[in-house]
């Protein structure tokens, strides 16, 4: 790995990348590059060890079986947990969000052990949540209203150690009026779309956590897409 570059570690694209999850890595890289920050995207396959020296770790969505396999391998490997403990930023989406919690449900809703980066527990709801989602982010994070596409059957309960990422305006999210959760620099969300291309503010939050204050960028296609999707979902 390059020591001077911002290291974006994409965890298990072979297991957790069902729907455009690569977009989160590409947008982080682009928004860093536009500010003159050199970046490097490291692909970590499920047969590889997870490096501990990364700056931002990304986990995507996955089907039931790959999700369980990914959780088992991440626990056995231990690298992601050590990286989070030393303060690296983590963004985990959908199946990845559930994996970084304490437990999640398999296809029969039996609890499966997660990596335990967030104090959350996920199970299966009665109905699949499918559609556009809009939510207002915790004001402490300084990120404007987020949008994305959710497609999951999970219901997630947050324990006292985890703060809701946002309050849902449209959509299901965690299932209790909130969407996603965070603690320190670890954030989880159900949002595909993918989340960072659809929400430049969320991408910049991860960059601020990693490199400190960053200059704003002139509005581009990402901002335009966000406004278009907000207008479409709210009407």
């Amino acid at each position: 790995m390059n020591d001077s570059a911002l290291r974006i570690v994409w965890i298990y694209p072979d297991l957790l990348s069902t729907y455009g999850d690569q977009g989160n890595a590409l947008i982080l890289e682009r928004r860093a590059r536009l500010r003159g920050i050199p970046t490097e995207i490291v692909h970590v396959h499920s047969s590889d060890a997870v490096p501990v020296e990364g700056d931002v770790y990304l986990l995507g969505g996955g089907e039931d079986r790959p999700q369980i396999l990914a959780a088992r391998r991440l626990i056995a490997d231990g690298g992601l947990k050590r990286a989070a403990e030393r303060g690296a930023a983590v963004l985990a989406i959908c199946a990845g969000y559930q994996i970084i919690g304490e437990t999640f449900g398999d296809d029969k809703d039996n609890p499966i052990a997660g990596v335990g980066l967030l104090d959350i527990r996920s199970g299966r709801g009665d109905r699949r949540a499918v559609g556009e989602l809009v939510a207002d982010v915790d004001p402490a994070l300084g990120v404007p209203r987020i949008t994305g596409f959710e497609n999951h059957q999970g219901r997630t309960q947050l324990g006292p150690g985890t703060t809701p990422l946002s309050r849902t305006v449209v959509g299901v999210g965690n299932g209790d009026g909130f969407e996603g959760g965070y603690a320190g620099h670890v954030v989880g969300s159900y949002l595909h779309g993918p989340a960072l291309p659809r929400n430049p503010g969320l991408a910049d939050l991860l960059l601020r956590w990693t490199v400190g204050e960053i200059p704003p960028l002139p509005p581009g296609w990402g901002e335009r897409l966000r406004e278009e999707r907000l207008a479409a979902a709210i009407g």
Partner: protein
Amino acid sequence: MSKLSLRARLAATLGLSAARLSRATGRGDGSVIGGRVALKVEPDVLAELSRGRQLALVSATNGKTTTTRLITNALRALGPVATNEFGANMPSGHITALSSDLEARNAVLEVDEKYLPMVLSDTKAAVVVLMNLSRDQMDRASEINLLAQKWRFALRGSPAHVVANCDEPLVAWAGLGSSNATWVAAGQRWKEDSWCCPECGGHLDRSADPHWECHECGLRRPEPSWVLDGDTVTDPHGRKHELRMKLPGDANRANAAIALATAAVFGVPPDNALPRLREVTSVAGRYSSIQRGPVEVRLLMAKNPAGWLESFAILDPPPVPVALSVNAQVPDGRDTSWLWDVDYTVLRGRKVFVLGERRTDLALRLDTDDVEFEVIDHIDQAVAKTGTKRLDVVANYTAFQQIRTEWGRVT
């Protein structure tokens, strides 16, 4: 077909009348409504219509309509063939297809992936043809691992002869449910859905492509008896056949190899089948060329990441521009996340037009891959600005249908 019960014959006749009415009033091609009417009259009509015939069911994520057409053309060497050539690939469409030709001894039916187990059980088809499985419209489709599992289960309980692509791990695993399979090495360009062993979930070793193998449970690529290599198909007797298809691209070479293997199961040898495959130039408007003023426009439909990858591989070289059109209506899948699964860097240095109801999503995607583009509102703007005499158009399902409708249907 003299064994058809009176009730089934009535069902078929009423269904066909409904289909004709639908066509006459300009509502559609009638395939769906006709079948629905027939089902109301006789729920077992599909089983009855299938009795005494040799059926091939064709299923996959991509290439169903084309491969169905190719196999149908090949089997016409034996006489009339009943088929759902307009892509109405659910039971109502199958009923209409079989009702339309009660005398045909052979039938080739395109089948929606989810319906394959049910249609196989109803029709007792003699042959099941499986090409590929990849991510597609995940807001409404089943997880593909689950789909493969259902296929495998259905084939385990059926005497059908399976013709399947052994280079696709999910498809091969499903096909291994059958005790009677012909394996075709037809290749796989899109691999992002098959890094994981379908049997045990372990990481698949694909370092010696096209071979694949799981070191945890031992599942491995079945040995093919038909092999596609470049444009050459080697048959089980070791004889080589140059495909020289009119349809473009590797995906269609794969479809043709599978069609040749299927035709052989029906007793049509490659030398007889191949000239019939070459007659196919366009399928339901796909790959067709349309003259718009001085510009020859080629229409390519791509519904999912694997399809876009195949389309990019057959674009005319620059300076021929390409127009990309994306919608996110229900038939397309309402989530556009899949755009980020496609690598657009191959379009760098080419003139690119972007349109469709989700053109902003596509614009951001291209911008991120450093591809220059121009956003337009209507396909005719791309035609006006080509600067050459040709234009390639790649569009997903409803975006494709919109362009076809505006320019008049072409087949």
